[in-house]
């Protein structure tokens, strides 16, 4: 069984860095390659979003293969919104056949957000069911329905956690369910409310979850006051405190201040017990990632043979 690079980094105890790439609303391979080249060497794996916010885009698996060919490790996202268990398990087998090892299990934003609002939301499985399905495929060589796989598969199973969604008191317990279902690593929603994130981590440590699963804290560098306001008001399950917006407003160079905030947060996250890495989601601002990673003292990235 061969491990993914991300798994090796996390097992080594080195503070991990993952990036994110939003597939294009087209079939332009070169766009995917362009962004992957920017991230190459600065992150341990790159998430490929799966029709994020229910907007139709190129397939996460296809784009995962494109970046894999460039020597960048993909972490493909799979949502429960668009496929039932037949489609999902088939796609997992296809992805693994293409050399993809990291798979992130997501529920998926409701279709009403996207550009096909009349679509039927599938949700045959929920995100926790998806985790346990992948675990069963890997550990028991069995499909959900009990049929045997003809050969084993090797996958590193990711899950997401959102400390900023409600009810807050339940969020760490829900993470525990994801761990119990079989998650190997966790990536969180983007953090702007550090105080709330730390309260969540406290509960995570109390439940001993940080010892069972590495947690990568989410970061989205802010480009403008408008972007911050948009996330504050329109993005489901996000909290952007006013002090962050005020700080950007006061700054002469908004982008530079956005980077400063991201770097400060990453440095702080490295001091929190149980945070095993950061997940930098600079979608449509990929070129800023090298600077952030360097300034946060996380460059160069480890290499394994």
């Amino acid at each position, binding site marked *: 069984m061969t491990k993914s690079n991300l798994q090796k980094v996390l097992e080594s105890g080195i503070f991990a860095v993952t990036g994110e790439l939003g597939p294009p609303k087209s079939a332009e391979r070169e766009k995917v390659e362009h962004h992957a080249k920017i991230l190459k060497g600065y992150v341990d794996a790159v998430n490929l979003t799966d029709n994020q916010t229910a907007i139709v885009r190129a397939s996460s698996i296809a784009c995962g293969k494109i970046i894999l060919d460039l020597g960048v490790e993909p972490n493909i996202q799979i949502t429960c919104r668009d496929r039932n268990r037949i489609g999902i398990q088939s796609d997992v087998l296809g992805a693994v056949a293409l050399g993809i090892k990291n798979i992130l299990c997501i529920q998926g934003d409701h279709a009403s957000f996207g550009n096909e609002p009349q679509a039927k939301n599938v949700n045959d499985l929920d995100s926790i069911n998806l985790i346990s399905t992948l675990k069963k495929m890997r550990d028991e060589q069995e499909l959900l329905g009990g049929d045997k796989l003809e050969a084993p598969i090797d996958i590193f199973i990711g899950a997401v956690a959102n400390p900023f969604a409600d*009810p807050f008191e339940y969020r760490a317990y829900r993470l525990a369910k994801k761990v119990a279902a079989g998650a190997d690593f966790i990536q969180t929603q983007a953090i702007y409310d550090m105080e709330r994130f730390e309260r969540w981590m406290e509960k995570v440590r109390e439940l001993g979850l940080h010892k069972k699963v590495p947690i990568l804290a989410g970061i989205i560098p802010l480009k403008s006051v408008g972007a911050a306001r948009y996330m504050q008001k329109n993005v489901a399950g996000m909290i952007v405190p006013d002090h962050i917006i005020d700080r950007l407003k006061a700054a002469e160079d908004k982008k530079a201040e956005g980077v400063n905030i991201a770097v400060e947060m990453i440095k702080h996250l490295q001091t929190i017990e149980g945070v095993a890495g950061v997940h930098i989601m600079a979608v449509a601002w990929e070129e800023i990632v090298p600077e952030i990673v360097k300034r946060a003292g996380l460059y160069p990235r480890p290499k394994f043979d």
Partner: protein
Amino acid sequence: MIVGERKPLAEILKAIEPYKKVLILGCGECVTVCMAGGDKEARETALALSIARRKAGNPLEVKSHTVERQCEFEYLESARQMVEEADVVVSLACGVGVQTMNMHYEDKQTLPGLNTTFMGMPVESGVWMENCLGCGSCVLEETMGICPIARCSKSMLNGPCGGSQDGKCEVSKDIDCAWHLIVERMMKFNKLEQLQEVKPPKDWTPSHHGGPRKMIREDVKL
């Protein structure tokens, strides 16, 4: 109850355009209670259609009648004469009633005058909410009497998702997050530990996803 909403008059007018004699058939059950397709609505619809057609210079002979329960054959007989006299019937019952009519009077076409919206209940005057999808395997005992299949926008068995904020669903501030309500009610009854259990994927075969359903009870079958 089954909740419905009368189709816009323009849509009904378009559907009955080729016909001269129309029967508007109400139902005395659920759609009467939700004020969408009872006797009052049948009379009002008939009158509105009649006026609209007269204005359009294409007068319509329209009658209205209401049966006690449109979803059972035996209650449909009271309408026989009027059905036979009409060119077409517009039913203000739910989709079940419309189909029962088409099955019972197979030589006559019955058109839907209502959009059947959901199975639900009135929560206040003029407000109805959906709370059952008829999925065929009830989990309400596990979720403190709040249905995650009907009331969670993603029908999650292990919710809430990451889009739940301030007790509201990511889809709309007008929708309560069912899982938020479940967690709160679990806490109230000091049963939150029950939510630690990972619920397995749902078996959808007892639901419509397993194909159209039929129930046979040998004990009451003649």
